[in-house]
């Protein structure tokens, strides 16, 4: 594995240089927070930010995406593939939790048997450049409870670690090594490894939220019906904030937008919190109230995903905790379940 060392002040310049040659998604400051955006000319990528408001999942799995086009002709329907192939890109400045979310999403979108071409194409062509959390950005962070860590390398192609006066740059995958040329020739110090280990241990110990996420599986296995499910949902607004900001929520709906003889088939983010999510054509809704929807969200993250893909579908970024308008706190839900 290649390891380089760069002076801290050179990082912005390096990212801008890459952005001059290919598409770079980077955290950008906007009036209401920091968001992942395509880095435009003259825009400063954020380096010392806590975390973005939106998860970077939209880069591989956009909120709305064309799947195909069709036209009604005299001879019948003509279908055309979307045809927009992804281009090489870099996702700069992901946090380790968000980078890890892609490993979890891969298990669904990039299976041996079923591959989602839209996701896989973009995912394969994007290099993920992560900045380790030397200090966990929020007291709501709970990555260590769900299998991650503030310095986790899972999902990253290149990892940047702030080691004081410089960044340690580790090229973790062949894909990541494609960016080697941008990071100079200064080899990392011999003691960089030890230094990083120390940083990693310290960062993990600074995580303030501990959630017994791995302990609730048995309860969930056995308690599809339980009075506990009556206690979470009442105040839920049934909005999509938690699922839309979540790095691992991935449910979508497919719809057609038709104008005259022309149509486009698009897929859009959907949310298990929406009453329409499970509405059937007949008008029957198997998840008739927010109670069943909350049970679904909890089960999907901490049971179904574990059953199917052997991983909890949560990276502990804490966005849903911070941005839920009515303070429904997944940490509390999990903790409460663990006590039952």
């Amino acid at each position, binding site marked *: 594995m290649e390891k380089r060392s760069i002076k801290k002040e050179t990082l912005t310049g390096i990212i801008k240089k890459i952005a001059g040659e290919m598409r770079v998604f980077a955290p950008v400051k906007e*009036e*209401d*927070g920091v968001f992942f955006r395509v880095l435009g000319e003259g825009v400063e990528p954020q380096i010392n930010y*806590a975390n973005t*408001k939106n998860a970077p999942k939209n880069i591989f799995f956009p*909120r*709305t995406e*064309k799947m195909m086009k069709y036209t009604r002709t005299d001879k019948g329907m003509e279908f055309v593939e979307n045809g927009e192939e992804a281009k090489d890109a870099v996702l700069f400045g992901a946090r380790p939790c968000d980078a890890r979310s892609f490993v979890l999403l891969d298990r669904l979108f990039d299976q041996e048997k079923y591959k989602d071409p839209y996701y896989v194409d973009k995912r394969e062509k994007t290099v993920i450049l992560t900045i380790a959390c030397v200090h966990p*950005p*929020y*007291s*709501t962070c709970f990555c260590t409870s769900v299998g991650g860590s503030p310095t986790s390398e899972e999902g990253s192609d290149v990892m940047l670690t702030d080691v004081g006066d410089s960044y340690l740059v580790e090229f973790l995958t062949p894909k990541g090594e494609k960016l080697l040329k941008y990071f100079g020739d200064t080899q990392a110090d011999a003691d960089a490894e030890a230094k990083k280990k120390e940083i990693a241990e310290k960062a993990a110990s600074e995580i303030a939220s501990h959630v017994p996420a791995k302990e609730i599986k048995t309860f969930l296995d056995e308690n599809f019906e339980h009075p506990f499910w009556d206690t979470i949902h*009442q*105040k839920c*607004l*049934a*909005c*999509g*904030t938690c699922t*839309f*900001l979540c790095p691992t929520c991935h449910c979508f*709906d497919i*719809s057609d*937008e038709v104008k005259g003889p022309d149509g*486009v088939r*698009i897929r*859009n983010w959907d*949310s298990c919190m*929406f009453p*329409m999510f499970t509405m059937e054509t007949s008008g029957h809704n198997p998840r008739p*109230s927010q109670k069943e929807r909350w049970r679904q969200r909890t089960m999907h993250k901490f049971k179904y995903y574990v059953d199917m893909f052997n991983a909890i579908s949560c990276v502990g970024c804490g966005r849903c*905790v*911070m*941005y839920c*308008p*009515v*303070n*429904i*706190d997944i*940490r*509390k839900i999990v903790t409460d379940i663990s006590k039952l």
Partner: protein
Amino acid sequence: MENIEKKLREEAKLLLAEKRVDVIIGYEKGTLPFTATPCFITDPENAEKLVWNACCVQNLAKFVHDVISQHKESQKRVKPEDRKKKVVGVVGRGCATRSIVLHLQEKQYDRGDVVIIGVPCTGYIDGKKLAVQIGGEEVLEGSVEGDQVKVKTASGEKSITLKDVLADNCLTCRFNNPIISDIMIGENAPPMDPDHEYDEVGAFENLSTEERWAYFTKEMGKCIRCYACRQVCPSCYCKVCFVEQSQPRWVGIGADETDTQVFQLMRLFHMVGRCVDCGSCSAVCPMGVDLRKFLKKLDKDGFDLFGNRAGSSMDDPPPLSTYKENDKQDFIFDP
């Protein structure tokens, strides 16, 4: 404030113990600093959980409507002679009672379905303003002490004047005491600053059409269609929202930004004479869309044209559901 909280808990406990209400909807302490979260209390002993402070944000009338309509729906499956009434108690600040008045005027439920524990209100903290004051840092601990907000962040402790972080709608609130109530807790709160409620709208009105449209499209460009604004709004109680109707489908959900604009425009127009300026929609928006600017303009129009302020009195019916011979109508021909 502590005194109000104490009395509030006593009254709530009594109402539940005497079975005058089936549930009390109020606020309890949240899991993060400066949060209070809606709660539903049925056990008199749990009335102790109730809080009343500057962190109580959402308009609880939304939940009153939800609980009553869900109950009524469930009673349809019960034999008429076995049907039960459900009475909802609610902690009602000025704006929440305005919404309840509106619900009553719009015949959503009966006055007897709801018991209002009126509370005086001096405004709630706007999390976005607070974030600006502390430079976007995370709040680790915080408390409100008198007119000061004490905030602890990683870089130290800071004291901020409460007024500097109150929500805009609270600062210029005209109705910060309950319009109607069954039990009133504490003395009426001192007036806020309603004389300046339309200052921002006035400035906005003075912009050119292009500038106003540019602002609208910029703000709506942030929307991610999570519908938190609609969901939290007590006036948005349609059983099926037009954006979710599929036969016919009125708006798409795809990349066309006009679809999002149409959703927001239609929601805004449905708010004419029905927005009580509780600020909930802006408060819950995860993307910081400035919805209030447009709603306040409609509110101003409602007052200028029809002398109406939504939910401000049982005797002041919503302008769009009333007809008066001297109603202004020139705006129809000369907008």
